[in-house]
């Protein structure tokens, strides 16, 4: 069963624009992680944000976490064609080693 729900399911934008993806979840969490997956490849870890953090940055990536709304967003600024991939959020639950995954957002960057 999947806890995370990414929104939108698919997103197509012009190169250079910003891309925002959202993730909602149902239960209390220890952390929330974002991963990228290029077609036919494994998942690449992007950012981990802990439940006591509200915002985190890494290069062109910005992640926010709102535990009161049980939601997170991933912002990619100044998008590039190489950012075309599927993006997944995964929640690490309290006292649990499992990650619960959403179905992902498919991002297409048009040159």
């Amino acid at each position, binding site marked *: 069963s999947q806890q995370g729900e990414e929104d939108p399911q698919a997103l197509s934008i012009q190169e250079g624009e910003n891309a925002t993806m959202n993730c909602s979840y149902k239960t209390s969490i220890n952390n929330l992680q974002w991963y990228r997956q290029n077609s036919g490849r*494994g998942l*690449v870890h992007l950012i981990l944000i802990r439940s006591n953090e509200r915002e985190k940055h890494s290069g062109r990536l910005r992640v926010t976490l709102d535990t009161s709304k049980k939601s997170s967003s991933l912002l990619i600024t100044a998008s590039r064609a190489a950012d075309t991939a599927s993006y997944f959020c995964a929640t*690490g639950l309290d006292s649990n*080693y*499992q990650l619960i995954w959403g179905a992902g957002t498919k991002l297409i960057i048009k040159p």
Partner: protein
Amino acid sequence: GAGVSQSPRYKVAKRGQDVALRCDPISGHVSLFWYQQALGQGPEFLTYFQNEAQLDKSGLPSDRFFAERPEGSVSTLKIQRTQQEDSAVYLCASSLQIDYGYTFGSGTRLTVV
């Protein structure tokens, strides 16, 4: 090695055949996970090892699935008497600690015909 290595990259099996999928995690990573990913979906948890101990196998879909990590490093996922519904990408991930990000391998795409 520098990353998590999985082999084979692709496997085509005839229905009823047994298969073995290998995962070589990052050296020193205590935690190892197997996931199954269907096309267009997120990964689904199969099993978790801490060193050589299999602490959770609740995600294994049937008793045809078996995983081991005898020396706490390389792991093998075995599927006996494969069925068409076993067709998926099988992902292995390792982590230094369970609440750190995971490093995934490129996966094994299994097709059962």
